[in-house]
């Protein structure tokens, strides 16, 4: 049986950690979607330089560990005089990491829309960006929602990495409480339950969105 007295004794820490995880996840999510859309549009852009930049960024981020990226923002940037606290480093690190995957999901969605639509848009006098905004992206979003949803869930769970740069999230307090009480298993079960409070509603919301969008077809 789980030792609920630990949950009660440390409710302040669990709650503070939960709020930090929630805040970091939400902020990183918004930032990564914005960054991801920009990258996706760059990647399919007819301009070779933009395309090259986006490809390099995405490849670099997807092929290096998240932990090292976060260390770069937290421990690396002070070398050039930029001092970020764990919360900001973690949010930026997570957003940068997630944006690469989100960009790829969006790019796949855009390319799933027939290329004839781009040509039709351009032929009727819209600019490239206008064509994207009014014709392609609204159609692409339906294809993109399921993989995007998975990325959001990954981001919330990935935020646990904040604990390793002393960002006071759920995982940080989990580690501290576990080493104080020596009740390792129960503490991490409680931590997992708090993550479920975030991920289950998110997951349900994405399913709801999928159903709604497919009904509009």
């Amino acid at each position, binding site marked *: 049986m789980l030792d609920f007295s630990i949950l009660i004794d440390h409710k302040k820490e669990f709650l503070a950690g939960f709020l930090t995880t929630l805040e970091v996840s939400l902020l990183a999510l918004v930032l990564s979607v914005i960054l991801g859309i920009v990258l996706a549009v760059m990647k399919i852009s007819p301009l070779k330089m933009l395309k090259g930049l986006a490809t390099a960024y995405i490849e670099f981020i997807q092929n290096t560990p998240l932990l090292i990226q976060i260390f770069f923002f937290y*421990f690396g940037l002070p070398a050039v005089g930029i001092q970020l606290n*764990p919360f900001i480093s973690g949010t930026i690190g997570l957003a940068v990491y997630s944006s690469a995957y989100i960009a790829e999901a969006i790019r796949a969605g855009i390319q799933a829309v027939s290329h004839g639509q781009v040509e039709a848009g351009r032929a009727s006098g819209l600019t490239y960006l206008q064509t994207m905004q009014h014709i392609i992206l609204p159609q692409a979003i339906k294809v993109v929602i399921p993989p995007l949803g998975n990325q959001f869930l990954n981001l919330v769970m990935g935020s646990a990495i904040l604990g*390793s740069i*002393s960002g006071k999230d759920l995982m940080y307090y989990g*580690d*501290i409480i576990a*080493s104080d009480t020596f009740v390792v298993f129960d503490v991490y079960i409680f931590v997992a339950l708090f993550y479920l409070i975030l991920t289950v509603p998110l997951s349900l919301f994405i399913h709801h969105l999928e159903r709604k969008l497919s009904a509009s077809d």
Partner: protein
Amino acid sequence: MKKWQKNWGIALVSVLLAVSMSGCGKSDDAAPALANKSEKSIKDMDKIVVGIGSDAFPFGYVDTADKKTKGFDLDIAAAIVKDILGADDKIEYKDVNGKTRIPMLKNGDIDIIVKTMTITEDRKKEVDFSDPYFSAGQSLLVPKGSAIKGIDDLKGKKVIAVKGTRDGKTIEEKSPDAIVSEYENLGEAFTALTTGKGDVLTTDNAILMGLALENPGYELVGGVIDDQPWGIAVRKGDKEMLDAVNASLKKLKETGEYDKIYEKWLKQKPE
């Protein structure tokens, strides 16, 4: 498990006995320390075998330049043995670790242990400890010139600690207004200090002294927060050896020899 260990210990001792007996026929002096302990006084021993470590700079470590093990613990051991036996060359070092040191002392492989060994109640059941020879305990490391001089200056300061230790908790208890941040390991904690993520790093002073020696821009302040002294261990009940070690240790401190060794290795005066 216990029984197995005991049998193993007996087996090892008999092998050692057999080996050392067969090695020399003419003299009894070569019998292992354990066997001659009861018959002869310590002063008559050929040598004293000291268990030392080689994994804790600057207390006992292997110098990469000449591949020799050296350090504070070894010099203390050498000075004590010299005082007891009256000669420089009557000491033999044996490398031990945290797991092997007590079994090796018990079965006679070594006569005393001088290896960063904290005096604890649990260990007192297994061995006898000398008076403390090093005042170990939690301390503070700061960049040189820091305004922080001790535990009383931590109000509103960012204190870096290592996860899995009690160091952070101790600071929170003794200085509730300090902001404690804990890192995964010592390397990351020290990086946090050097990159300005916190004002002070806290853990055992022995570890901090090693860091300060390798990074001259940093220094220890405020002494030890909670005293957990190290002792020299001798076999349980070996009162003669214990008294001899304590008498030598006292002499070293009185003559200033101890301070010399301390400053040689730790580049600071004892507190």
